[in-house]
């Protein structure tokens, strides 16, 4: 793809750039930022209507490094979900891309994460998962492996929380996992997530090159490369695009998304149907037992209604309603007062 190629909005890929990253060289998060802006470019996302949301941590700094023409809110630790909930009800025309980390989501923000997913707030929720706190220099997070050792934090005596399993348990309508080294898969999953109407959780194992890149960590580059099991190869098709490349007949599964796009999955594991929740739990449990990173689209439910739909609000976003629709008339006040005792 040449650097002069423009998308449906007439924008160049470079128009989706953000500021230079200040994360450690080689950090998995940087490659995720690159894929976000690349996927947004390919998907022709209108940056003026995108909000980039985050909490606190290395991952939560990254919205500064992509899509500089979008509003961003770098909130507080673990609280991105509640802020995004308010944003999306206030203006449902926006598209929210949230970036969080394993500590931000699995520790301090666990409750908000579960409740956001339960409400099916329309947003793409990316977790850059490395099992440690980077900004405070290497403490374990709740997704760290049981028995894992690091130089700074010693040995982890607690079992890991699987954020995909937690999302699934909270009735998440889109659950995927990937690895920061797999640019193509991340991009396809992101594009599918952009077309999804509810909460799309993508848990991306993103090794911390400074504090958690030991060979025995499932969140290391080494482990990721050696122990990755791809559930399905993901392709995304929208409109006139045709990327129905090397998918063999009978071994692929198409899932239509609400905006007319399709996710096309080349099934590597014949037993898994991503629309089957029980099957999704099974592959996650199997992966846990075998200590492999299962990647791909684990679960999708296009039917579940979203928080915005359930709120039955006006088609015009609430923030765009004029005063006469927000402040009832004097006659209405008189009516309300007449119904009081007096």
């Amino acid at each position, binding site marked *: 793809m040449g650097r002069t190629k423009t998308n449906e909005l007439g924008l160049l890929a470079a128009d989706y750039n953000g500021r230079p990253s200040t994360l450690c060289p080689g950090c998995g998060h940087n490659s995720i930022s690159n894929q976000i802006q690349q996927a947004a470019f390919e998907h022709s996302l209108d940056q003026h209507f995108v909000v980039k949301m985050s909490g606190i941590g290395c991952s939560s700094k990254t919205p500064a490094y992509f899509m500089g023409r979008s509003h*961003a809110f770098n909130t507080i630790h673990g609280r991105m979900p509640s802020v995004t909930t308010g944003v999306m009800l206030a203006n449902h025309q926006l598209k929210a891309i949230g970036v969080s980390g394993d500590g931000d989501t699995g520790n301090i923000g666990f409750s908000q994460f579960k409740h956001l997913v339960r409400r099916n707030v329309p947003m793409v929720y990316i977790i850059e998962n490395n099992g440690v706190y980077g900004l405070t220099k290497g403490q374990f997070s709740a997704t760290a492996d049981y028995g894992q050792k690091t130089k700074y934090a010693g040995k982890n005596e607690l079992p890991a929380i699987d954020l995909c399993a937690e999302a699934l348990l909270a009735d998440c309508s889109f659950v995927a996992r990937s690895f920061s080294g797999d640019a193509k898969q991340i991009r396809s999953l992101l594009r599918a997530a952009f077309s999804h109407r509810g909460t799309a959780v993508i848990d991306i194992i993103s090794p911390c090159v400074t504090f958690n890149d030991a060979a025995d960590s499932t969140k290391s580059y080494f482990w990721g490369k050696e122990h990755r099991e791809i559930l399905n190869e993901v392709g995304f098709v929208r409109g006139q695009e045709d990327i129905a490349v090397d998918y063999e007949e009978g071994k692929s599964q198409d899932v239509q998304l609400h905006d007319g796009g399709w996710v096309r999955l080349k099934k590597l594991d014949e037993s898994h149907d991503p629309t089957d929740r029980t099957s999704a739990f099974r592959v996650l449990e199997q992966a846990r037992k075998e200590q492999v990173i299962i990647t791909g689209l684990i679960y999708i439910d296009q039917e579940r209604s979203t928080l915005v739909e359930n709120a039955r609000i006006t088609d015009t976003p609430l923030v765009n309603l004029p005063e006469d629709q927000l402040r009832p008339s004097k006659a209405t006040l008189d009516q309300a007062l007449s119904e009081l005792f007096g």
Partner: protein
Amino acid sequence: MTVVDLQQAPATQLHSGQRIVNDFSFVVATTNGTGSQTSNNTLLRALFKMGVPATGKNLFPSNIYGLPTWFYIRVNKDNYRAHRSQAEVLVTYNFDTFAEDIAALPPGGVCIYPMDAPSGKKKWNVVTPSRDDIYYYRIPVDELTATMNPDQALKEYIANMVYVGAVAYLFNIDMGEIERALSYHFSGKAKPISMNFGLVKLAYDWAKDNLQKIDPYWCEAMPDATFTKDKIMIEGNAAAALGAVFGGVQFVAWYPITPSSSVAENLQSYLADYRHDEEGRATYAIVQAEDELAAIGMIVGAGWAGARSMTATSGPGISLMAEFTGLAYFAEVPAVIWDIQRMGPSTGLPTRTSQGDIIFTHFLGHGDTRQVVLLPANMEECFRFGWEAFDFAERLQTPVFVLSDLDLGMNQHVCAKFEYPERPMDRGKVLTAEDLQKLGGQWARYKDVDGDGITYRTLPGTDHPNAAYFTRGTGHNENAGYSEKVEDWHNNLKRLAHKMNTARELLPQPVVQQNKGAKIAIVSYGSNDYAIQEAIDYLKARHDISVDYLRILALPLSPKVGEFINGYDRVYVVENNEEGQMAQLMRMDFPQKAPDLVSVARCNGMPLDAEWIMSQVLERK
């Protein structure tokens, strides 16, 4: 009907002195969960419709069923509406508190109690009251209730109507108004109205046939209705919700907590009634959050996106909201937070009133944070701040706390009909895509263009390539970029302080009451107003002391407060908390006058009363 022993134990003499008309208090002692609130509000409403100023105060436990609860009704022909700690007339169904309730009556007080048990569990028939200096009336609660043949489940509830009937007869309360009040309560539904009013009537007739009026207390209709004409009755939490609906609230997130839940519940119901488009779509959204952290997070998100957003909570919720309101102060995001204050510290007493959150909310957030606070004193101001708080929040781009309290929020108060907002909404300094076009895309989120400390913002979804900015709680420069430079930090905090100074003049200014020649003054705020007005009258009438009065409506303090206090030898700062929190804030802002500020502070779960305030002023000369 069985013949009832009319012997009133112990025997009391018929009162022979002057009648006491429209100037006394009732206290009704029951247990919570038995439905006595309907009866109490019925009496209150009937008095109101007779033109008699009457104020209700519910003193209830933090419990669902079976613990003592008291309802005070103060009747006062001069329209004094503050709570009085002394009641002259006791109506009791609560056997467990009988002794203490009797002991609390003044000599010549009245006690009305059952001769049988409403629930059949208590041995009212063998009770012999200890005092012989009060008037007694006994009523056959069970027997009269049984006559109506109510469902077992309703028996305890409807039994409360017996005292309504007896009180109506003994104290001359209009039965037509009682029927109308019940009709209002039951929204005109014939069956419950006839069942309840039927029992009221039965008890009234029984009392008429069997009781001899021996005490001096009377209610008399006031046909001029000077104090009740064109007035309404409402509780503060409903007034706040109604105000917010007319303030164009677009987003509400909340978490249940006493005594604030009814703000959100009233919002839910008013919004459902009044805020839909032609197709029935809501022009608002409301979310019951998983906790107060999420509730405030949601409204900060919606406020950032450009919606008028609010939550309602109480002390423990405010503690949880410290994190987000610190962010909203620093990132400059509008939000409205109603704090219906209850007693703290910690869980405290959830069903008792106080003004204990003044300092905490004013400085809520770590670092150098200062929050805007509004202080409503009555129903009219609850309604007004209901809409006006959004104007201030969006104009100042900062959280606005409205500090009501349990006494205002959860009691029925008489008030004037609310005025429709007299000006269009103030949506503050928001740049649209067209504005940005005119500016050639040149703007900076945190640059003080107008010199008032308030900067311009854009909303997400503004269709212009230069609209976006990066909102953060970290240190930032004028362009909202991350900065660790000391001068950026200082400039930003200095500007925020300047913005707060703008707020001092922009926010509602104090209400001042001055008489010629007064050498002392009272400064106060919020629901203490009723008691202070009364105390000032007493000080003049009984002691010939003139007292001026300033009531604070907002924090940070207006310079007018400083100008006012400079004119007096001594200023009493009256408030309902233990530490004299407003007095402390005034000493900070007006240190030159600190020696002359006398803190008059008390926190016992009850609203302040006039006698106590007067005694403090007299004692602390």
